[in-house]
């Protein structure tokens, strides 16, 4: 595959910056709650909720709703599929970066 084919094959669901940030945050811990993800990504509640729904539908993230004392808490956790998807994404991304480094700019006369 050449660089452009690698670029095309990047998982679009993961490549979107907000979703990538959510996945990176979840990959560095066991699980995180909605408030933390809201703070760390800087997204609005509606946007975060929509991105989490998409990730959940794709099976990359698991949503768990529970009560801690009297407080309702929504946790998000990366599934095994999500971990694999993120790992594959970084592998593809590294190949794209390596390919781009080898590209030489065209000389215009």
């Amino acid at each position: 595959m050449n660089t452009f084919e690698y670029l095309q094959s990047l998982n679009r669901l993961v490549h979107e910056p907000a979703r990538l940030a959510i996945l990176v945050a979840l990959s560095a811990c066991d699980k995180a709650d909605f408030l933390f993800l809201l703070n760390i990504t800087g997204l609005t509640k509606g946007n975060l909720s929509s991105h989490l729904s998409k990730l959940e539908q794709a099976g990359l993230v698991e949503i768990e709703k529970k009560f801690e004392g009297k407080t309702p808490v929504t946790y998000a956790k990366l599934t095994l599929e999500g971990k694999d998807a993120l790992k594959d994404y970084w592998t593809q991304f590294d190949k794209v970066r390596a390919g781009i480094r080898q590209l030489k700019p065209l000389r215009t006369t």
Partner: protein
Amino acid sequence: MADIDLARVRLVSRHFHDLQGLRIALLGAVFGILAQVWLLTRSETWTVFAGLCVFLAIIYPTVMLNRYYATRVGRVVPEGREQLWRGCIGSVAIVLFRVESHAAPAYPSFPWLLLGAYPLWLAIDGWPYRWYQLLTFLAAVFVAFGHVGLTRSSPELAWMAPRMWAVSLALIATGLFDHFLLLRIIESKHDAVSEAAAEHADTV
């Protein structure tokens, strides 16, 4: 959408509990109090008694700090592997402290070096954001090397108090730095989002 620095996202998510620095600062203050008690009384019994009193006194502030971080920043459950590592380092250090207290210390204190390795790792893993963790590492090394040539019966055992003060001050400083780093990262996200929203409003 606001720019997202993935390195910072990973840092906060991975070290969320370490970055709750007010708890570390509290721990530093406890170290300082115990060092002061030791310096004044030179008695192990009084130091242990003071330790118990301080432990009871910090239960409520610790609960309040946990609640503050949970409502202000959110909740993160760390990976089991990370917790296991921390538990292992702590347990090994406690065992080594017990072993070392019965031996004539001809070498730098190994448990202090082991404990110092943890902030060193935090500084490396969080570089350049958490360079100040080196202060705690240096304080631990300072204690470890101050140990050489002294026995438990040495009158110079008072070396411990000023060195414990160094650890205490380093913990308080790094705790406050960590707390402000956490708040700065989170507040910068909100500022960036507000800017992005304002830009979007201008273009509509």
